[in-house]
């Protein structure tokens, strides 16, 4: 499986951690056009990582509300899939939201996201006395151990 990106949002809709992984060399399906014109539209190029995080939050927020409305307050939004990627979602009881974007063939990652929360976020961020509880100016998780942990977790246990 391939992981494209990973986001954490706090209960105030602030993106407190985001990470994108570059595709493995040779896996890009981009084919140069014969007339030399790139087929990338400029609009998608203009999207920065911050814009992406905001769009992801808007999407999961809307979908979560939609699912709650239809399935009742106990229903949980788990994932959605498009033709090209799959987005997995896990929300803790404290409204922390973990989002992982992977390729479409990946199975349910709810448990994996829960593991990241329990064994990385709680251990390294929550138990860190210097880590801020709120992130008013988008300070985010500024914790080397957590970042290292996520990095290792994704490269070691998932990308095989």
């Amino acid at each position, binding site marked *: 499986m391939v992981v494209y990106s990973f986001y954490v949002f706090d209960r105030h809709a602030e993106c407190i951690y985001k990470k994108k992984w570059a595709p493995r060399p040779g896996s*890009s399906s981009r084919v140069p056009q014969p007339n030399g014109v790139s087929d990338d*539209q400029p609009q998608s190029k203009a999207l920065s990582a911050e814009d992406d995080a905001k769009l992801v939050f808007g999407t999961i927020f809307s979908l979560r509300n939609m699912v709650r409305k239809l399935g*009742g307050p106990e*229903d949980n939004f788990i994932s959605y899939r*498009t033709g090209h990627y799959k987005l997995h979602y896990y929300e803790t009881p404290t409204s922390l939201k973990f989002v992982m974007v992977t390729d479409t063939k990946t199975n349910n990652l709810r448990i994996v996201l829960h593991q990241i929360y329990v064994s990385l976020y709680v251990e390294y961020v929550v138990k860190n006395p210097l880590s801020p509880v709120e992130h008013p100016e988008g300070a985010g998780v500024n914790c080397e151990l957590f970042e290292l942990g996520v990095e290792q977790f994704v490269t070691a246990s998932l990308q095989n």
Partner: protein
Amino acid sequence: MNMLLQELDNMVVYSLIIINKAGGLVFNRDFNPALNKISVNDLLVLAGTFHGVHAITKSLTPSSLGIPSKERTGIEVLESSQFRLTCFQTFTGTKFLLFTEPHQPNVDTIIHKVYELYADYVMKNPFYQLEMPIRCEAFERGLMSYIRAK
């Protein structure tokens, strides 16, 4: 009574929603009362929201994949713990949303059959105005007999 309950258990298509290319709700029908009943107003909001989210998810396609914008697709399947939503978008932009049980197989077949019924009974109906709510008895009859037979 038991027979009736069993029958309800076997029907696993919860409901169908059709959204036109502008994001307006043109048709909705519940087949199974498993999902919460929501008002028509909320349903209209839901249709509009889904239309927008569908467009956003299309633009969220990882740019590293290098997929040209024309080939990108929006949400196709959404999973929650109580239902699964399958979305089929026609080439003209009409979206068919089918709510089923989470493990219902062959949803693609069902949704294509629904599209076929739509093409036959709605699009070939000379009195149907494009992009307007669908009020067509033959379509509903065909739909009911197909879904109930499942």
